């Protein structure tokens, strides 16, 4: 299947859904699901049909350049990942969004974001890349704003940062064009080989700002907590699962497909080596946001901060340019997509059933009411922490191994610290939503509807599948690495056969099964457990009436008191301060236009005088 067909389906789907929304709501829902699933099918079908021959020029003469599409392993891998998460979110939306207004707009924008992202990964040149990037940016902005109220503020914050990034990227791209006369990705790789390291660094910086904003690397992250928590949950899943990771795609493309491995590793000297600085940025991006996540009481904000933090792992993996590390980075990207999307969907399901509550202080004890959601949450946090049997374990393993073999114990330590913070904070998420006592008002909460359960269970399946059989995605990742010139890894279906990151999930599985069996056996041997109702609680030996339950409020309060002074988001504060000052300056500037005609005439005369004075003083002509 050609990339052209994929893109046409994607954009046509978005348009048709919008029109269908005007006709009938069922037709609209049907078309939305159909087109998102069709995309998954199309992309899956086009697996393996790569090659330079697949470069397709779809607009021949756009301002004197060619707009081209291409399909290669990197593009395919990201495309399928985008399409699956988006399809799951669309299915989830069916019940989550039911009865809300402007659904035609909502679904078509979901599909448009999807189409934009597919366009990005399928672009064969940087101009198309930029165009699709921008389409993705503004449609995202519209979708974030969809929920109104505070979402408007979040949307503005997002789009302004995004515009700054786009401007930087535009300068970078066009400087490439000015230098080499082409924007075709395939040709740029060869063209750039001979340029000076200063120039390469400039390109990386310019692009890095754009990708960094999307990727939410510190200090460009401040839009993300707001946007993720204010967007509707299915879109948060897309936002955090894939959209943010377009930055990762961009980094991979620029760093390894274009600039090339050798140049990257030799950029700079000593401590000021490019990949060294990038990896430190990654490490900081892990630690600080993860602990900020610990302090959050809004379930989605908590997840959003984790989204930033997990990005740090990907950067860490990718920055060193070893086969193992880059494989870990790419693998972590899709793993993160699967479990963060899962967790956002779970929070969305809870939100849906409890009437929009996502404040962790007001939830609790939903385990029996929403068992599937609980299971999803459990699997999701296991993946997020990186427990064995989940896919997060494998990718984190690769990344840790890379850090240690490359001789960066301190970075590895920071990554571990990040994981501890993750464990603490996701336990808070799980506990405050599902464990503990059930508040009186949630007695009547029902299970999540089936269209929510399907995506949740699907992601659980993926997490375990890739956790036990990491060979499946790793083989695709190897295809990408081949095109970038990395040494091949010794892959097996169960992990890595040999080398630095040797791993056999079969053995681990086996060990875990035995451990489970032992525990199960011990439990069977012990006294017979007695089932009690959830409300049957005792304190100090006496039964506690339901109205007196102590629900878990202000989890980690002592810790909070201790660390919160250090974890203020000063970057965000700085941006607000700067925006405030800028507005003050704007207000002052407006006073130029005094409203008195005499002043304006004075301006005209002074301008004339200035021109003549300049000529007298400097002979400008």
């Amino acid at each position: 299947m050609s990339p052209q067909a994929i893109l046409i389906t994607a954009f046509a789907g978005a348009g048709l859904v919008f029109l269908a929304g005007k006709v009938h709501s069922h037709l609209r829902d049907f078309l939305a699901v159909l087109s998102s699933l069709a995309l998954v099918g199309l992309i899956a079908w086009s697996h393996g049909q790569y090659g330079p021959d697949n470069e397709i020029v779809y607009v021949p003469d756009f301002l004197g350049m060619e707009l081209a599409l291409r399909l290669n392993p990197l593009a395919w891998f990201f495309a399928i990942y985008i399409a699956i998460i988006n399809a799951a979110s669309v299915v989830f939306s069916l019940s989550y969004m039911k009865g809300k207004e402007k659904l035609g707009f909502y679904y078509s924008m979901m599909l448009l974001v999807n189409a934009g992202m597919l366009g990005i990964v399928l672009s064969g040149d940087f101009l198309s890349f930029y165009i699709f990037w921008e389409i993705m940016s503004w449609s995202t902005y519209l979708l974030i704003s969809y929920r109104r109220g505070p979402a408007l503020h979040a949307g503005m914050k997002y789009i302004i940062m995004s515009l700054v990034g786009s401007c930087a990227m535009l300068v970078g791209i066009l400087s490439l064009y000015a230098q080499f006369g082409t924007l075709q990705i395939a040709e740029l790789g060869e063209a750039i080989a001979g340029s000076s390291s200063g120039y390469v660094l400039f390109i990386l910086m310019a692009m890095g700002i754009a990708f960094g904003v999307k990727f939410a690397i510190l200090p460009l992250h401040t839009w993300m907590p707001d946007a993720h928590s204010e967007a509707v949950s299915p879109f948060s899943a897309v936002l955090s699962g894939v959209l943010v990771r377009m930055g990762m795609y961009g980094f991979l493309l620029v760093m390894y497909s274009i600039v090339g491995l050798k140049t990257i590793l030799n950029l700079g000297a000593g401590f000021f080596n490019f990949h060294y600085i990038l990896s430190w940025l990654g490490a900081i991006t892990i630690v600080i946001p993860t602990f900020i996540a610990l302090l959050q009481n809004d379930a989605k904000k908590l997840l959003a901060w984790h989204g930033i933090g997990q990005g740090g792992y990907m950067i860490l993996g990718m920055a060193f340019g070893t086969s193992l590390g880059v494989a870990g980075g790419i693998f972590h990207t899709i793993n993160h997509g699967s479990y963060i999307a899962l967790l956002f969907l779970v929070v969305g399901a809870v939100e849906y059933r409890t009437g929009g509550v996502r404040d962790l202080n007001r939830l609790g004890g939903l385990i029996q009411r929403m068992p599937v959601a609980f299971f999803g949450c459990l699997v999701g946090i296991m993946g997020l922490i990186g427990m064995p049997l989940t896919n997060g374990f494998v990718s984190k393993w690769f990344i840790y191994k890379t850090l240690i073999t490359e001789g960066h114990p301190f970075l590895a330590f920071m990554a571990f610290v990040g994981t501890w913070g993750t464990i603490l904070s996701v336990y808070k998420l799980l506990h405050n939503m599902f464990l503990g006592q059930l508040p009186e008002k949630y007695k009547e909460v029902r299970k999540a509807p089936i269209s929510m359960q399907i995506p949740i269970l699907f992601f659980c399946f993926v997490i375990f599948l890739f956790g036990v059989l990491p060979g499946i995605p790793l083989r695709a990742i190897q295809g990408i690495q081949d095109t970038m010139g990395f040494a091949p890894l010794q892959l097996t279906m169960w992990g890595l056969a040999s080398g630095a990151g040797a791993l056999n999930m079969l053995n681990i599985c086996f060990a875990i099964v035995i451990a489970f069996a032992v525990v199960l056996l011990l439990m069977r041997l012990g006294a017979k457990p007695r089932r009690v109702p959830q409300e049957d609680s005792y304190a100090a030996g006496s039964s506690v009436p339901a109205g007196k339950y102590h629900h878990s409020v202000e989890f980690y309060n002592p810790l909070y008191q201790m660390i919160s002074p250090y974890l203020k988001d000063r970057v965000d504060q700085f941006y607000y301060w700067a925006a405030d000052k800028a507005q003050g300056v704007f207000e002052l500037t407006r006073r130029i236009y005094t409203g008195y005609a005499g002043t304006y005439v004075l301006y005209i005369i002074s301008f004339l005088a200035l021109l003549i004075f300049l000529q007298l003083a400097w002979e400008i002509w």
Partner: protein
Amino acid sequence: MVSPILLIAVPLGLAFAIPVLGLASKRVPRYVPVIAMLFNLVVSVSLLPHALKAPIVVRTAGWAPPYSIHLVAGPLGVLLSSLIALIGLLVAVYGIDYIREGAKVKYQILYILMLVGATGVVLTGDIFNLFVFFEVLCISSYALVAYRGDSTGVEAGAKYLIQGAIGSGLVLIGIGLVYGTFGTLTMADIAANVSSVGSFRLFVSLAFLITGFGVEAAIFPLNGWLPDAHSSAPSSISAILSGIAIKAGLYAIARVVYTVYGASSILPFLAVLGIVTLLIGEMCAFGQEDIKRLLAFSSIGQMGLILFALALASATGISGAVFLIVSHGLAKALLFLASGYMIYRTGSRDISSLNGIGKRMPIMSLCFTVGAFSLIGLPPFVGFASKFTIVRAVLGTGSTFFITLLAIGLIGTVIEGAYFLRIVQGFYFKPAPEDSPEQTEGKVPFSALVPVGLLAVLILTIGLFPGIVGRVLGPAADDLLDRTAYVQHVMGD
């Protein structure tokens, strides 16, 4: 091939026929501008292929230049006259129902005169003739700004007139100096002799011309009139003023600086001026609460960007500037036209009162959004293609000076994005104000939907296939840059 002179003669004749036609039927005059502009559009577009081959020089009364007043319809001139006719036509259609009160007949006459003035400015080859057409444009726009006779309208009109009159006085002094030096008014003839004259004397005349035309071109700090005039005029007139009239001023500057004087060393100064204008415009627009005033300030910003691109002195730079003239003309006309009926509907020009209008006027708001996105420069709309061309031109020059200016200018784009997107958010995602009066007269007639919708479609189509306009841009840029060819074409061998 029809003579380009018809582009001026026919609408002019129709304009003065309006009072007579008005005697026959009261409804006829409102359709006359539509006919006139339709004629102009057809003629301009049919002239375009000829003009691309070689500029068409029209001699009046059989005298060869430099003794005659003549028209030079080069690629740039014909492109701009097509743009004027296109926007003029759409706004004329819009005006059929939009203009409801006051002296309707006089409005239609002045409307045609204004467009004839603009067409004349871009087509003429004689510097005094340029001034005359310029005055036709200016005087009719003074009157049209104050046309409704309300307090803000007359105030804006009076202030506009004061500044405009000073500006044209300066232009006239400049022309006098030029004539005193060269003894000719033909631009090509001046261009041929310009190198033979000492620099300071020449520079003074150039300074007068730049300042004078700069008043109409809304270059900072000569633009004190613009926010008042553009915001107080009826929306159809604001659309023309922002979409066309200020571009005519800028065209005059470009023509004088490039073709007539060949003053390339003054260009860095103009580039700085452009960026300053851009920043000031965007900064002032940011805090506005009046939608039309905001659009007016945004026009100032865009004019700054066009001036900056013009000052690049490279073919790509100038084609970027011309492209931005086209894209800004379309987008700004669309924004003013759409906001016109929104203001009728809500009865207020406050941006906050437009909140939630997306529900009440879905098509108008959608088109407004398209226009706003295009102005910010988001793909796939035409604004992106034009801004892209400009950025490419800047990086193509490879000069640190221009790249630094561009980096500063991009801040302006971000500010622009901020305020436009805030408005769009308000349209769709903010609740309508509680006390908004439900104005029944706000029902959007067909005659308004068609031009607004057509503009939105044009913005999207050219954005997707910029080649439609793109192939004219190169010759248009050469038209401005290549002095010797211009002189040869006009003067003969």
